[in-house]
């Protein structure tokens, strides 16, 4: 019976008076690469911090490998490899010093693996952390997260600020080092076209709740865009699963999820002409979910 590496149930969190997470539900299957999407400020970092016990939820629970970070945050942190968003580390330390320092917190630290990673990630031992470039900084943060051979790795926007080559290299390392070893990877990003090739599963967080979750390839297959010239007096809100309505001149494009024959018939009936169907890329899918006009405000 496949278990979930991470389980989040009805999680709520407030920053002062503002409710940032309004009941988040999420399951991350073991061994998957899970992409956590959302706009800036949607609450991705907050969710991740709650998973590590760095913050305390107002309500709800989250578990990493059945351990609740509110009960035993030390156990969760020993189990998880964590890379914070734009992780700043102690600039005065040399790389060899910071590796030794982090190592002293983890009984399970593996020196051999660490040395291999230092070579692979091309990190010069004697350099001070403050002299590292952004790419080197990210690679160092990744190394420090992986040195104790965690089985669950949580990365918060790991490619932030990296140039395109460095980003690709980083994702390459994630796939090669981690997926091959059955490690569960949970990472947040808003560079959607980047997540898609890499992630098995995707969840979209918006306005404090998960608005969509599913396998990456099914996400694409399920959603269709139709362009048509509509008959007057149509109420597009009738179409269930309608994500977005955009008008341009006298044409209308409808983005619909879970499109079956019945829905297709309804849509054809609304059209004056033939209906043109197109597929969408992940950016467009994300937009439809997050800022889509649901057409509920009435007819065309």
């Amino acid at each position, binding site marked *: 019976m496949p278990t979930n590496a991470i389980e989040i149930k009805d999680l709520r969190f407030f920053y002062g008076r503002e409710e940032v997470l309004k009941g988040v539900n999420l399951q991350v299957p073991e061994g998957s690469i899970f992409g956590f999407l959302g706009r800036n400020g949607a609450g991705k970092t907050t969710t991740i911090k709650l998973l590590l016990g760095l913050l305390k939820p107002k309500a709800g629970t989250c578990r990493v490998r059945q351990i609740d970070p509110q009960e035993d945050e030390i156990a969760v942190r020993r189990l998880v490899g964590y890379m914070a968003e734009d992780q700043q580390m102690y600039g005065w330390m040399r790389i060899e010093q910071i590796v030794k320092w982090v190592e002293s917190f983890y009984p399970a630290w593996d020196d051999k693996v660490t040395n291999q990673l230092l070579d692979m990630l091309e990190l010069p031992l004697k350099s001070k952390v403050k002299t590292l470039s952004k790419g080197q900084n990210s690679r160092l943060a990744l190394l420090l997260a992986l040195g104790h051979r965690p089985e669950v790795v949580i990365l918060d926007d790991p490619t932030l600020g990296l140039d395109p080559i460095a980003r690709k290299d980083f994702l390459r390392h994630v796939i090669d080092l981690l*997926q091959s070893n059955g490690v569960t990877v949970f990472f947040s990003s808003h560079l959607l076209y980047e997540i898609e*090739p890499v992630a098995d599963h995707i969840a979209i967080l918006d306005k404090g709740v998960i608005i969509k979750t599913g396998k990456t390839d099914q996400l694409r297959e399920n959603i269709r865009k139709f362009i048509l010239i509509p008959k007057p007096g149509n109420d597009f809100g009738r179409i269930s699963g309608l994500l977005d309505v955009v008008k341009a001149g006298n044409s209308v494009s409808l983005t619909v999820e879970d499109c079956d024959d019945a829905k297709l018939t309804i849509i054809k009936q609304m059209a004056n002409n033939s209906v043109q169907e197109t597929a969408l890329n992940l950016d467009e899918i994300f937009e439809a979910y997050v800022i889509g006009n649901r057409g509920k405000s009435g007819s065309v």
Partner: protein
Amino acid sequence: MAIFIRIEPSSSVPIYRQIIDQIKYQVVTGVLKEGDRVPSVRDLAAKLAVNQNTILKVYNELCRENVLKIERGDGTYVSSNKRSMPVVERKKAVANVLREAAVQAIHLEISIEQAKELLEKEYKIIKSAKNKTE
């Protein structure tokens, strides 16, 4: 054996399909010859920065369509066309693809003669590309 795959990240074609199409194109034009070894799932995934399960899906489908074959313990190779599916099945696979093209053509009011012309042209282009690599 390195193969050149380019993924268009913002395309609306799913990634696995892009890879399948590109490998097929390379086989058909002779860039990838029969018996050539393709990278392992792990290597190709790392090279393209694509999820290993996606690559696995690609290779599985290409094996099913007899474009590639897996030699246990040895790797994955470009299969020979000769020992492939029976004609009936091959025709069916092509008919599926042509159906979509036919819909487009009819929708855009391209006549059957014009469509035939276009198909012949594509055949010529690919065959000449194949001849160049041989």
